[in-house]
């Protein structure tokens, strides 16, 4: 059953979405079957959150609001996991 989910979160990580956070975010997004997009404005433009080239290329600065949108069977889980990653300041254990 396809579902659609959106959530937003404030990016507090110092100096923004730079190399390591971008890699973590992309790797996490790839774990889900849903299509996952990311934007820094509600109206877009949206980029593929599973594309490391696009995520790192976006150079999202600190204090941006990150919008996640996912579509697919595990869309809700995908969006929740990504928001949690950002909230935890990209610390993964």
């Amino acid at each position, binding site marked *: 059953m396809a579902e659609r989910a959106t959530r937003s979160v404030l990016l507090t990580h110092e100096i923004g979405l730079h190399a390591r956070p971008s*890699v973590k975010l*992309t*790797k996490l997004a*790839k*774990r889900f079957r849903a299509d996952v997009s990311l934007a820094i404005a509600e109206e877009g433009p949206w980029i593929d959150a599973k594309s*490391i080239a696009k995520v*790192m290329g976006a150079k999202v600065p600190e204090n941006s609001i990150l919008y996640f949108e996912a579509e697919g069977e595990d869309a809700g889980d995908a969006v929740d996991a990504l928001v949690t990653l950002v909230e935890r300041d990209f610390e993964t254990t």
Partner: protein
Amino acid sequence: MTGIVGIVIVSHSADVASGTADMVRQMVGDEVPLGHCGGDPDGGLGTSVERIMAAIDAAWSDAGVAVLVDLGGAETNSEMAIEMLPDEQRSKVVICNAPIVEGAVMAATEASGGSSLEEVRRTAEEYSPA
């Protein structure tokens, strides 16, 4: 096609090659098969076909291997190393037209999610640090 695409780093400098490999390990993780080589057998700057072949072997995956190179000879020697591989391996190794450090991190990140060799190459080549 099974497994995670391997990444090979070929620099003129052993330090650049191992430093780039460190970045891949620390930023992306250990799940990606990784090989690297740099320097000539006398300890100077350069690349050697033999070492490149050994690095490809070290990173070997049935899903294929993406090679990142720095300047001139790194590329021509990598091409030569690929030529000398057994038939069944040769078609599964590609050289990415991307900057060595950035390309290696991009390629490894893409590979870690189980992407195909073609997707890994495309991702490495897509990123422009501009």
